[in-house]
C-alpha cells in the first residue's frame, strides 16, 4: 500500500515524512524520524510517556496517527532546550533529582511545560492533577512536583 506524504513543523523546523496509515505519530517520531525521546510505555494513552504538543495542545502521541500531523506544529522533548540552554523545567528536574530511571521524564517535562503555559502559578494540587496522566513508578512524584513548582517560581521571576 502506498505511504502517505506528510508535511509538518517539528520543533520549529519544517519536516516531511512518509508513513503508513496505521502508524501513530509516536511510531513516526521514533522509527521514521529517529526522535526517540518520546517513549512508548503503553501505546494506549494511559501513561503519558509519549506526551507531545500539537498546535500547543498536550496529547499522547500514541493516540494520534502520523497522517494527522499534516500541517500541524509538533513540539517534542528534543525541542525543549534552546541550543545549549536547558528549559527551566529541565534544570529544576536535575537540581531536585526529580528523575530516577528517567523514562517518564520527557513526557512529564512536556506536560509540565504545557501546564505552566496555561497557569504560571499553579498550586501543588493543580500540578498533581495536571500530571495525573503521566505515570512515574520510581519517584512517588514528590520531587517532580517540587521541581515543577520551583520552575514556575523561577519563570515568574519571583
Amino acid at each position: 500500500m502506498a505511504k502517505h506524504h506528510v508535511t509538518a513543523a517539528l520543533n520549529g523546523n519544517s519536516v516531511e515524512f512518509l508513513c503508513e496509515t496505521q502508524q501513530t505519530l509516536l511510531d513516526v517520531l521514533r522509527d521514521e524520524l529517529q526522535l526517540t525521546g518520546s517513549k512508548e510505555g503503553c501505546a494506549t494513552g494511559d501513561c503519558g510517556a509519549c506526551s507531545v504538543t500539537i498546535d500547543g495542545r498536550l496529547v499522547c502521541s500514541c493516540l494520534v496517527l502520523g497522517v494527522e500531523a499534516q500541517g500541524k506544529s509538533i513540539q517534542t522533548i528534543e525541542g525543549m532546550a534552546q541550543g545549549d540552554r536547558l528549559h527551566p523545567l529541565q534544570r529544576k528536574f536535575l537540581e531536585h533529582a526529580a528523575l530516577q530511571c528517567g523514562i517518564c521524564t520527557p513526557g512529564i517535562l512536556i506536560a509540565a511545560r504545557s501546564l505552566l503555559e496555561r497557569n504560571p502559578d499553579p498550586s501543588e494540587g493543580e500540578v498533581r492533577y495536571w500530571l495525573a496522566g503521566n505515570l512515574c513508578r520510581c519517584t512517588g512524584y514528590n520531587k517532580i512536583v517540587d521541581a515543577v513548582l520551583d520552575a514556575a517560581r523561577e519563570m515568574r521571576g519571583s
Partner: protein
Amino acid sequence: MDMKTTKPEEKAFKVVGTRPVRPDGVPKVTGQARYGADFALPGMLWGSILRSPHAHARIRAIDTSKAAALPGVKAVITSADFPEQEYEFIGPERVAVNFWHMTRNVMAREKVLYEGHAVAAVAATTRAIADAALELIEVDYAPLPHVIDVDAAMRPDAPLLFEDMITRGIEPPPAKPSNISKRIEFGIGDLAAGFAAADAIVEMDFTTAPVHQGYIEPHACLARFDNKGQGELWSASQGHFVVRAFTAKLLNMNIGDVLVHPAEIGGGFGGKTVIYVEPLAAALSRRSGHPVKIMMSREDVFKSTGPTSGASMTVKIGARKDGSIVAAEGLFKFQAGAFPGSPVMNATMCGFAPYNIPNVRSVGYDVVCNRPKSAAYRAPGSPISAFAVESVMDAVAAKIDMDPLKFRLLNACKTGTPTVWGPKHAHDGYAETLQALLAHPAYKAPLGKNQGRGVASGFWFNNGGESSATVHVNEDGTVVVATGSMDIGGSRASMAIMAAETLGIEYEAVRAIVADTASIGFTHVTGGSRVTFATGIAVVEACNKVIAELRARAAMIWKIEAADVAWESGCAKPAGAAAGKFEPMPLKAIAAKRALTGGPIGAEASVNAGGAAPGFASELCDVEVDPETGAVKILRFVVAQDVGRAIHPSYVEGQLHGGVVQGIGWALNEEYIYDDAGHLTNAGFLDYRIPVASDLPMIEAVLVEVPNPNHPYGVKGAGEVNIVPAMAAVANAINSAVGRRLTDLPMSPPKVLAAIDAGC
C-alpha cells in the same frame, strides 16, 4: 518535609552527603538518553511474539510454514530453535535458576502454562508484516483445566502444571506429585511453651494480590547475532552480565561470545533481573542474518512478565501484658506462577525479623499455578509477610492496650537478637527508625472524622556480592570511573561522589559510566539494594589502588620512598618532616608527569562484598475513609528508614518516596483480575491502576543514619525496605479510621465498603 537524623560523632565529608546533578542528567531531560527500545541498526528487522490464548494447554503441533512464506518475513522460530536444558536447580535457593524452566518460560515447549506464554516468534522487515505473520502461525492446542488461586492449586485434585513435580523440602518426599514446588521452614525455641505464656494471642488469615513491578519501559532489546556463534545485544536490564549469561546458556553459546551493551533502563524494581525477549531476538537474528529488535507491548508486559506473588497467609502472635512478645507463628503460601521460584523463603525469614521473639516458627510453600512466572519485586517476599505480621502486631498492641510504636520498640531487635533463621542480628538500626517516628510531629498531630493513623515496620536483607570497577586518571587529571552496575536511579552520581571523596578531588572532575560486558569485570545485578554498597566498595578499592600508585609516582618525582608520601585532599604530601620538604603535588600535576613516571595511571577492583547490613523502615500513615464509597485517601505518610549513610541524599529520599508509593498502590489499587477461563482482564495501565500524582500527598522521608562499619562510607542499601511496611501501615490506618481490619489486598473501595457495612 524530608528530614535526616545522624549520630553526632560522625566525621565530616566534603562530597559524600552533597546533592550534585547526576552525570547522566542532561541526556535524560533532553530525550537523548537511549533506553532499550531506542536503538536501531541498518537492515534491522522487527521481531514479534505469538502468545498463548490459553491458560493451560498441551501443544500438539505448530505449523509456521504460512508465516515463513509471507513476503517480508525473514525468520520464524519456536522452541525447536532452542536446545533442551538439563533439569537442575543451580545457584541460590531463592532464585534457584533452573534452565529447564527458563527455556520453557521464554518459549513454551510441551505445554503453555499461562495466557500470554510465548509459543513462536517472527522477524520481518516491518512491524506490520511481523504482526501479520503471527496470524498465519497455526498452533494446535489441546486445552487443559487450569488453576489460578494458590489455595486451589494446593488441593490434591488440582490440575497439575508439571505431572512429575514432587515437593522439595519434605522428608521423606511425598509419593504423589503436586503443584507445591517446595516447603520451607525456619524456627527457634518452643512454640507451645511460648504461646502458653502469652496473655494475649491474635491469629488472623490474610491474602494479597499479585502486583506488577509496573516499570514504565516495556522490555525491549536489539540483537545482532551471526551464525558463527557471536552476538551483540543492546538491552535494558538490571544486569547486563546476567542477560549475557542467561542468553548464552539458552542459545548454547560461550559467555564470552555474547557482548551486552547496557542501555539505559526505564525502571525495573526486580522485574528486569530475568530475561524474556533477549534470547528470542538473538535467535531470530542468528536465523535471519539481520539485526532484530523486539519491543513488548504493555499487554505483553502484564501477561507474560513479573509480577510478584499473590499469597495466602496465617499469622499468630502472642504477647504478655507487659508487652513482651513470647511466641509467633506464620504460614505463608505463595503463588510462584507457572514455574517454581516465588520469594516465599524471604517472606518466611523477614516477617518476624524486626522482633526479639524467643519462640518463633515460619513455614512457607512455593506453589505453581497458571499465571506468569513471578519475578523479583522490591524486597521480594518481605512486604507480603510484613502485611500479615504487622497487621497482627497492631491487633496485639490494641489487645494489650499499648501504643503500637512503643510495643514495637519494646520488642525491637538489635545487635545480638536471635533470628528465626538462626544467626543473631549483627546490626542496629530498627529501634532508631521507631524513635524517629515517635519523635516526629506527625505522630501527635490531631485527626478528624473518618480519619485514622496506622504504623508498621519492615526488615530487608540488603545484598552484597560481586562487583567490579575501574578508575582511570586522565591526562588532564580528571578521572573516569566505570562500573558494571546498571544505573537505575542515580548510581552514577553516588559512584562519582564516593570516588571524588576518596581521591580528594571535586565531584565535577569525575565522570562515572556504566561499561559493557566486555569492558569491565563481572558485576551482579542492580538489585537487592546492593549497588551503592558492593559496587561502591569496588570503586573505593580501585580509588585506593590509584592513590597508592599516585603516591609512588610522586615519590619517584621527589626521589623519596613511596612509604614517605601521604595522600591528602587530592594531593601527594611528604609524610612527616623526615620525608623531606616538598610542596603538595596535586593529582593533576602527577597525571601530567605520568609518561615520565611509568605511563597511564589506573586500577581495577573486583570484590565479593560481604557484611551488607540489613535495612529497617518504620512508617506512619494517616488516611481518610469515605463511608459512602469506601474510597481511602492517603492524607499523610512518613517513612523513617535506616540508610546507613546517604551518599546522595536526594536520590536516597527518592528511593523512600518511590517505595512507599508502590506500597500504597499495592495496598489500595493494584491486582491481577482473572476471568473463569484464566484470562487476565486488566492487562493495561487503565485497569491496572498504579498511583498517579493526584492520589498522593508529599511523602515525608526521614533518613536515619546508623552507619554500616563494613562499608568505607557507612552505606546500607536503601532501595527496598521502604516498600515493606506500607500495606500494613495503610491497613492499620483504615482500622483506626473505621474500626474494621482489612485482611485482603487490595483494600479497594468495594472491599472497604463491605467491611464498613458488615459492621453496621
